[in-house]
């Protein structure tokens, strides 16, 4: 199995405070990887190091070695624009731009110059929306505002937007925490469908969701990676007592 992302001895600091301690992890190309752990354990922070979104926080500082296909993403030669085109992201709260549905999806391809001409762009938009399972619902109203969709549709639009630049990895930061159970189920189905085409890393505070959608699970606690392994093993036969405590609901 190929390793898409390898992280080694990663530390993250916010000013004086250390948010991530000595985390090393390999993310598989073919799998969905879930990050679980109690609030404030650093799982989202670590996720954001993988596409350098922590750069937008002035006080954040990242140490260690993170490689995408063997390339150091924190090296001086790494172009952040290219990195983020290869590693897409979906956020906790759906954040479509206040533009039309079409323009939301076309935003990335335009920036990166992926389409030459209207028909190519149309094709990208249709394909992305189809993959995100939204095409059937919106194909007749592509010019409506993206913000007019329901919460679940907005989140699928954000996934379509991420897919449109043809990334290799998709990071999802608690993508269902603002959605109702039905919309959540649709997103989970979608994650199943996308598996294999993209390496997917999903942060969730919902352990059932991690068990449902992922093949690998990493358990974070107090900024440390406590345990990482096959999802089945983590949930049925954890090695670490802290993992057991968390999974059986003793804290969290």
């Amino acid at each position: 199995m190929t390793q898409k992302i390898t992280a080694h001895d990663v530390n993250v600091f916010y000013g004086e405070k250390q948010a991530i301690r000595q985390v090393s992890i390999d993310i598989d190309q073919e799998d969905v990887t879930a990050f679980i752990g109690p609030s404030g354990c650093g799982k989202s922070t670590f996720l954001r190091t993988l596409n350098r979104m922590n750069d937008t926080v002035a006080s954040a500082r990242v140490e260690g070695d993170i490689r995408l296909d063997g390339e150091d993403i924190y090296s001086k030669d790494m172009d952040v624009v290219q990195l983020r085109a290869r590693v897409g992201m979906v956020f906790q709260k759906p954040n479509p731009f206040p533009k039309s549905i079409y323009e939301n999806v076309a935003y990335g391809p335009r920036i990166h110059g992926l389409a030459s001409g209207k028909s190519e762009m149309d094709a990208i938009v249709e394909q992305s929306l189809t993959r995100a399972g939204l095409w059937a619902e919106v194909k007749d109203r592509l010019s409506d505002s993206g913000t007019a969709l329901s919460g679940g549709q907005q989140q699928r639009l954000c996934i379509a937007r991420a897919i449109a630049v043809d990334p290799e990895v998709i990071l999802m930061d608690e993508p269902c925490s603002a959605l109702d159970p039905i919309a959540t189920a649709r997103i989970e189905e979608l994650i199943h469908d996308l598996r294999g085409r993209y390496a997917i890393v999903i942060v969730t505070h919902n352990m059932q969701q991690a068990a449902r959608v992922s093949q690998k699970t990493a358990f974070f606690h107090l900024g440390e990676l406590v345990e990482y392994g096959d999802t089945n093993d983590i949930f049925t036969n954890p090695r670490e007592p802290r993992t057991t405590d968390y999974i059986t609901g003793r804290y969290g």
Partner: protein
Amino acid sequence: MSLGALFFVVAALGLIAWFVARARAVAFRTGRRERFSALPGHHGAFVALWTMLPPLIFLAIWWFTSPALVTDAVIGTAAAANLPPPGFERAAILSEARNLSRGEAFGAFHDLSELLAPAYAAAQSRYDWIATALAALLAFAGFAFAYARVRPTFAARSQVERIVMVLLLLASLIAILTTVGIVASLVFESARFFSIVPVTDFLFGTHWSPQVIDPRDPGASLGAVPLFWGTFFIGAVIAMAVAIPFGLMSAIYLTQYARPSTRRWMKPVLEVLAGVPTVVYGYFAALTVAPAVRDFAVSIGVSWASSESALAAGLVMGVMIIPFVSSMADDSLAAVPNSMRDGSLAMGATPSETIRKVLVPAALPGIVGGVLLAVSRAIGETMIVVMAASGVAQLTLNPFASTTTVTKQIVDLLTGEAEFDSAKTLAAFALGLTLFVVTLLLNIFALIVVKRYREAYD
């Protein structure tokens, strides 16, 4: 007693009422352990307000009406039979008599005013006594009414709250009523102007030269189009050409690029610009920018360039407006949720792409609203154009030519020794009314735009 003294007496009565009512409330509380709906202080405040407010309201009305009553009384005396018929002279004599009776004048120009002065003093003291008596009566009536209600079960607290609410309402109504009064006076004087000059001549005429008005056809030289154009050209074109780009860019820098430490000193410094008195900008425009603009114009071959050019006034006005545009744009950009910015950056957009394609479009209604408010400030701005713009009204597109604005002309029309009833002076009010209507519409429109946008993210 004079009105001022009465005011203090009423205040003293209120204080006494407060103590009396409070003492009574304290008395019925002592020795009882039940819950009371009001503290003794509330009973005191309730009675004090009832004691003071009726006489105070009466005195406020009296203050406006009593001079007329006194004058009427004086006119009714035998000595007043020799007064000239109503007009300027009669008013002057009466006014002199009043000043004499108060000891504010040192001698009389008119024999008649000396005669009338004692009558004035007598009438004044008679009416002062009436005022004192009425005020005292009202104070005691109010006190009696309120004091009778001081009982353990009386909810003085909520009553006081209600009275306070009404007082606050009145305070806020004063600003609104003043605006109404301003509009009314503008409309009144403008109506007089438009009875001399046809509305169409004023609004659509293209020739403005109030110095030379033909009495047979005053409208011919009071066409305000060159003024409207000059105002628009200086305030909305040249000033905005400076203020919009610089204001917007500084807002973008401050919200998106500046480190917190930079922002901490740069934003207040920018806001200081807004606190500079406009007359100081006026000096700067007239003494520094205007000569520089003229020299520049001459150097590029415009030999006839005016030293009171539209460009100089407009540039300085634009600088004055920068902090205004900047702070409105700053607010609008800050109101765009951070998740928009993160979403765009996560797509691999650069910060400047994010600003151009996501943040500014999302904040655009707020920015447009801010710009409209800035325009309405710029076209109402007076001091800079009074000092730096010329008085020559012409329809021109050349920024080096001299142009004038509505506000500058209002000042010119109202200074000097023209008689008040002339078309020339009254034109100032018509200009003021037009300016008021235009800025009012701009403000309303801007507020609607801003409001609609605010709702989008809530």
